[in-house]
């Protein structure tokens, strides 16, 4: 089976970036800036920090595009993993643990300049939103606290006042359920 054209095109863009093609990097940025910046805003809750990390992420893509291995996953997964990892590193560096108090209640409202040109339309968001809505809150909260707030399982146990073993079980069960719910949506979601 052939990959979807957008995926094929992402792979080719990364190959062109590895060959030091500036225009290809600009195209990749234009395609993913809003989803990655939205993710970084959710993690950091600070526009200046999020923009700084977004810049770091794309400069890392510029330097490391040759390391992308298409046999290990899709470009989207690689980019999101890179951005989230950098975002969590920054979060831990600035040690804003007071954020824990407001974790889970945070919402970021930003305008999208041109939704029609964005690679990620409401369809993908709807799929993930529906899947998360089907997870019991006790499974969803540990996952969200880990993903967006960078908390470890021990920190989550303390934050929720639950035994560590319970947190581990709920996180794992929730992730398995999430994977089941998203199964078959890989092409739409870019993985």
């Amino acid at each position, binding site marked *: *089976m052939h990959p979807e*054209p957008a995926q*094929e*095109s992402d792979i*080719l863009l990364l190959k*062109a970036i590895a*060959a030091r093609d*500036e*225009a*290809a*990097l*600009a*195209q990749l*940025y*234009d395609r993913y*800036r*809003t*989803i*990655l*910046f*939205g*993710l970084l*805003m*959710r993690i950091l809750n600070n526009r200046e920090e*999020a*923009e700084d990390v*977004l*810049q770091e992420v*794309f400069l890392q893509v*510029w330097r490391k595009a040759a390391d992308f291995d298409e046999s290990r*996953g899709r470009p989207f997964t690689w980019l999101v*993993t890179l*951005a*989230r990892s950098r975002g969590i590193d920054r979060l831990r560096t600035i040690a804003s643990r007071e954020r824990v108090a407001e974790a889970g209640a945070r*919402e*970021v*409202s*930003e*305008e999208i300049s041109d939704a029609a040109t964005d690679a*990620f339309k409401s369809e*993908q968001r709807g*799929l*993930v*939103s529906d*899947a*998360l809505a089907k997870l019991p809150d006790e499974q969803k909260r540990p*996952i969200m606290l*880990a*993903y967006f707030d*960078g908390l*470890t*399982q021990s920190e*989550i146990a303390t934050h929720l006042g639950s035994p560590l073993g319970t947190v581990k079980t709920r*996180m*794992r069960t929730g*992730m398995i359920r*999430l*994977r089941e719910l998203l199964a078959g949506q*890989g092409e739409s*979601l870019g993985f």
Partner: protein
Amino acid sequence: MVHEDYKEMIPARALSALDAAEAQTLNEHLENCAECRKELDDWQATAAALAFDANPAEPSPKVRERILDEVRKDLSETNVVPFRSTSRNLWSSFGSLGAMAAAVLFTALIVGLVVIWRQNNAIRDELQQSREFVQLVTSPGARVRELKGVDLAAGATATVAYDTNGHAMLVADKLPRVPQGKAYQLWFIVGNKPPMPGKTFAPDSSGKGRMKEQMPREALDSPTFAITLEPAGGSTTPTMPIYLSSSAVN
């Protein structure tokens, strides 16, 4: 700890939620376990989907400018060849022997500059072709086909991109060297009709090959692509063998 214990830790690892000691233990296991590495890749794809739960947001246009400024600086730094002038005192200090040494150095410098100039030209050409390739594959209605090497060229790969007007580009890698008087030739196959000939090309010394092509109109309808080894001037019907071909038409 047994293999299954490590596997159970992987979903949490994909969320980077393991505590430091557990993360280190799992990382050591991952170095030696391909199955768990694959498992982690799969879980990371699931975790990445969570990014859709964040509201997309628009960064300042200055971020794009800053990124591209850095990239241009990087490109200009890697293309600059530092040149150091030789002091006149060197000549007087070493007399004719110094002059001879300087002449040798000067000759080496000229040869070096010529080599770098050629390399720069080659890199510039390659970048230009890469840009054209990206423009082609991102144009409306563009299609892309991957070709894989068969027995005689196992490991070789090629990509053909083409648009609705038949403008096509081929990029190939890891091609075996061609014997003297021979060249690779691209073919378009539609259904049970005879293969339609494309242009010929020769790979460089590293096995890379690039070519622009104008596809026949009748080849635009779900073609299969094949590459064979032919006489340098090309053939009107393939004389075999097939070196690369695209998979079944979808």
